[in-house]
Structure formats: structure tokens, C-alpha cells
């Protein structure tokens, strides 16, 4: 048994048992962040906050939601929307947050790509982040199913059918995932479980991992300047704050983060109160009907780019079925970001504007993703189908040429 002295205060009593002073230092007041960063470095705190908003609003929705195909639609559209005090508000908060969190995730991701914050020691930050993107996507999809409207039903139909493309066991796998030959009650109840329990708890775990992966390689900065964090921290602690290249996470870095968070929350609640409709598809206010497919179906905006890669391949090529090519392209689009740190063959970390070829590559990728997103929502006929095809091919080519592009930059600079 360790020896304990008599404590003189509650704080001291806790400190003896939990060592909170040291914990606070390690996690907050002596967790060092580079000075040379801009507002794009605040996205992590925005995401953590939005996730918190989703959890709280979700708890209130869950108290009235009924996961049963006969009750689900009315429990959302009558009970929650009309009877529960502020039920409509919790639903709009939840739906808009689910949409906006993807906007921030994309900004967070592309900031990382632009500044090269995914390589040379930061690979695990990138990979855990992509795992979060995947689990958030699964949470978004499973949540979209719950109101059991027409879009809920047919999105579930299309997405579960994707697993039919798995070799050999495909058709059986689809039935197994659904628990029925069709999307049915068993499907709704199991996706409810995933949405309210398994996925949130997995996300919380990966968020913990994501924070932890930052500890050793540290946060990147605007000029990708490499320096010794311990030396800079000593300067700061010695009172030489001006010369030090770092600031403590708490209370210095967080104060700027909270300012950005304030601006974001004003924007977010403006959407919640005045423009929630973009997250509430009108087609989903028709109850699910397994005998009628809506005239035109499309996923939420944040899935459109990968959806367009999936359907961009609408004709057979060299004996390969259009269905299989589309599915392989879709799998490629969703997995390729994971291996980005190894596709980038430039040994130096630099922001994109210091890497001429990569800079062009980055902005072509942005334009291509926007084209895919826009055409993902349009009906896949005539010219649209061809634009989709070329944009999908361009997306794949961009990642195939990335090793060459980054090598050329490195050679010109003389780093290779």
C-alpha cells in the first residue's frame, strides 16, 4: 500500500489519489501546439463539439423514436415533430449536425492533404482520421434509415445491395445483412442498434485513438517547419514566450479555437433555424413503400462524389460488367485515401503551394470532387452519364499518377 499523508484540501485529497495536477499538465497546460497555424487548425475542436451536439440531440430523439416499420415513420413525423416539446428542434439539430459534420470533416481532411500533415511520422493520425470518416459514414447511413421514409427505404435497398458484389457469397450476404429477402423490420431494428450504440461507441474509441496519435509526431504548421518541441517548450516555460515556436493547448490555443467555434456555431444554428430543409429531403416525408421506387434517388450531398464514381461506369469495358467495374471503382474511391501517405513519394513535408505539381494536382482533385458531387445528384442520362464517366475516370487517374507527380516535385527541388 502506498503511503498517504493527511490532505489539507479537497483538491489535495484528489491529487494524492488521482494525480490530477500532472494529468492536467500532460493533457492541457503542457501539451504543445505550434504557433504558426491558422483557423483551419480549429476543425478538430469543431468536430468534437458537433459530435457532442449529435450525441445530446440523439439522446432526446431516442426517447420517443420507435424502431418498428409500422411505428417508426409516425414516431418521427408525428410524435417527435408535433407532440414533443421542441421535438422538431432536436430533430433539426440532429439532421443538420449530421450534414454539417461532413462539411467540417472534408475541410479537416483537405487541410491535412494541402499541408502534407499525413506523412513522415503522421501516418497514424491520417489512418485513424480516415477510420473516423468511415465510421461517421456508416453512422450517417444507418441514421438516415430510421425515419423509414421513401428515401430511407431505397437508400437502404441500394446500399445493402452493394454487398451483392462480393464474390461467391454476395447474394447470401445481402440477405444476412438485411435479415430478410427485402429491406424489412429486421433490417430497421439492427440498423437502429448500430446507429444508437455500436457505431457511436466505436467512434468515441477512435476519437481517443486519433487524439493519441497526435502526441508523438505533434501538430503540423503552416510552413511545415520542423523543430524540437521540447526545446521550444522550455523556452516558453522559461518565460520566453515571444521567441518560442509553441503555445500550450490550454488556455492559449483553445482560446483561438473557441473563437472559431463561436463563428461556426452561429452559422450552424442559423442553418438549424432558418435553412434546415437542405437536410430534410421532401421525398423522405412519404412513408416507405417497397412497391414504388421514387422517380429519382440520390444520397445525401456528402456521399454524392463516391456515388457518382459508382455509377459513372455505365457500360461494359473489355468483357468486364459495368456493375463490377462500378463496384471496384467505388471500393477504390473509399479505400484509396487510406494509403495516401504511401502514394506521396516526396520525402519532405511541405504545404502544397511549395510543391508546384502537387499544387495543381490538389486543385484538380478539388474540382473533380465538386463535379462528381454536382453530377451525382443529376439523373444519369445522356451527357450527364458521360460527364460522370470522365469525372470518375479522372478521380482514379489522379491517384494513380500521384506517386509520379510527387516524385517530380521532389526531384526539381533536389530532395531526391
Amino acid at each position, binding site marked *: 500500500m502506498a503511503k498517504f499523508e493527511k490532505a489539507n484540501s479537497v483538491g489535495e485529497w484528489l491529487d494524492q489519489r488521482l494525480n490530477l495536477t500532472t494529468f492536467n499538465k500532460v493533457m492541457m497546460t503542457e501539451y504543445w501546439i505550434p504557433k504558426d497555424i491558422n483557423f483551419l487548425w480549429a476543425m478538430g475542436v469543431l468536430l468534437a463539439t458537433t459530435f457532442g451536439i449529435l450525441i445530446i440531440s440523439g439522446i432526446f430523439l431516442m426517447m420517443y423514436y420507435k424502431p418498428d416499420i409500422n411505428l417508426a415513420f409516425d414516431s418521427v413525423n408525428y410524435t417527435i415533430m408535433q407532440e414533443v416539446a421542441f421535438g422538431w428542434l432536436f430533430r433539426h439539430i440532429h439532421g443538420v449536425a449530421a450534414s454539417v459534420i461532413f462539411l467540417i470533416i472534408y475541410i479537416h481532411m483537405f487541410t491535412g492533404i494541402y499541408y502534407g500533415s499525413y506523412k513522415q511520422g503522421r501516418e497514424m493520425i491520417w489512418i485513424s482520421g480516415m477510420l473516423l470518416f468511415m465510421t461517421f459514414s456508416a453512422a450517417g447511413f444507418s441514421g438516415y434509415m430510421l425515419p423509414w421514409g421513401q428515401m430511407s427505404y431505397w437508400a437502404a435497398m441500394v446500399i445493402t445491395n452493394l454487398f451483392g458484389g462480393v464474390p461467391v457469397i454476395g447474394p447470401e450476404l445481402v440477405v444476412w445483412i438485411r435479415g430478410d429477402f*427485402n429491406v424489412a423490420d429486421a433490417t430497421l431494428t439492427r440498423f437502429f442498434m448500430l446507429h444508437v450504440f455500436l457505431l457511436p461507441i466505436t467512434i468515441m474509441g477512435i476519437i481517443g485513438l486519433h487524439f493519441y496519435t497526435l502526441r508523438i509526431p505533434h501538430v503540423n504548421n503552416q510552413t511545415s517547419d520542423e523543430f524540437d518541441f521540447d526545446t521550444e517548450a522550455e523556452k516558453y516555460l522559461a518565460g520566453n514566450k515571444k521567441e518560442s515556436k509553441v503555445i500550450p493547448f490550454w488556455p492559449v490555443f483553445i482560446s483561438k479555437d473557441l473563437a472559431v467555434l463561436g463563428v461556426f456555431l452561429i452559422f450552424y444554428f442559423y442553418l438549424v433555424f432558418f435553412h434546415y430543409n437542405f437536410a430534410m429531403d421532401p421525398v423522405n416525408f412519404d412513408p416507405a413503400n417497397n412497391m414504388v*421506387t421514387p422517380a429519382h434517388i440520390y444520397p445525401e450531398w456528402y456521399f454524392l462524389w463516391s456515388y457518382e464514381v459508382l455509377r459513372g461506369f455505365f457500360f461494359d469495358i473489355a468483357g468486364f460488367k459495368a456493375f463490377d467495374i462500378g463496384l471496384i471503382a467505388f471500393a477504390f474511391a473509399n479505400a484509396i485515401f487510406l494509403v495516401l501517405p504511401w502514394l506521396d513519394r516526396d520525402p519532405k513535408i511541405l504545404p502544397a503551394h511549395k510543391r508546384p505539381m502537387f499544387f495543381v494536382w490538389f486543385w484538380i482533385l478539388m474540382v473533380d470532387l465538386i463535379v462528381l458531387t454536382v453530377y451525382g445528384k443529376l439523373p444519369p442520362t445522356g451527357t450527364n452519364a458521360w460527364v460522370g464517366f470522365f469525372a470518375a475516370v479522372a478521380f482514379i487517374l489522379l491517384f494513380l499518377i500521384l506517386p509520379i507527380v510527387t516524385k517530380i516535385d521532389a526531384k526539381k527541388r533536389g530532395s531526391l
Partner: protein
Amino acid sequence: MSKETNRRDFIGYSFAAVAAVGGAASLVGMKQAWDPLPSVLAGGFTTIDLAPVKAGEPETFVWRGKPIFILKKTAEMESSSRDLVIGADRFTVAIGLCTHLGCIPAWKKDKWKCACHGGEFNPSAKQVFGPPPRPLDLPPFSLKGTVITLGEDGPEHQAIAAAMKA
């Protein structure tokens, strides 16, 4: 290696064996908990009389929660190995879910068009445009006179299924 280490190794391997058996058994149980329930598997035979179906106007019926297309072909429509021939009439019987990703194609003039990803199927249910990898699926059925029972595997179904494979 000392005696203690050998013992500890033995205890370790024993636990690994117990954990592996238990883990594998739980996985089997969890997998089966997600299988379709017996009530779902037992659900559904659907009986349809084909006599009143009008030529060139496909009708939709429900079997196991899925739409079933029945089209009586007009004289102009081409014959196919999957035609269900009853007397002088030729029928197309198909599960009305696009073989791409499962949307319900709609009949537009002389073919089924899928709104989701643009797939098209001709009156013989064969894919003629877009991403569908195969014709509309054939449901199992049996035939008595002009009445078919979906869910039963009759000789007419087997003949058409074999013709489709060839």
C-alpha cells in the same frame, strides 16, 4: 528455459485454446442471430392467374415483399428462351428489382427503365443499357393451367432457368 516458464506457457496455451473455442462458438451464434427468422423464411407463396393479363401491359404483383413483373407479350415483341409459353401466349415473369442495385424499374412504352442508375430491360427482361449485370431475375414458380404459384419450384420454372443459363 526454466520449469516455471514452461508451466506458465502451458497455462497460457490452455487459456488460448479455451478462448478460441468460446470465441468461435460465439461468432457462430452471433452470425445466426442475424440470419432471417423462421417466420420470414416460411413466409410466402403467391398465386396469380395469368388469363386476365392484357398483352403489352405489364402488371406488378407482390411476392416475399418483392415486386413481380408479369408481361404478356404482344405479337411484335421478340421471342426469348425465357418466355413462359401457355397455349399461344408468351409471358415474361421476372422479379421487378433492377439487378444493379435493386430499384424498381418502371415500364416506359416498350421497356423497363430504372430511375436510379439508368439501367434498361427489354420485354424479355434482358438488360439492354446501363449498369445491370444480368437480366431481371426469374422467381421460382409452378404452373397449373393459367395459374402460377410463386415460391414453388415447378418443371416449367426449371426449364426456363436452364434455358437462361445456357
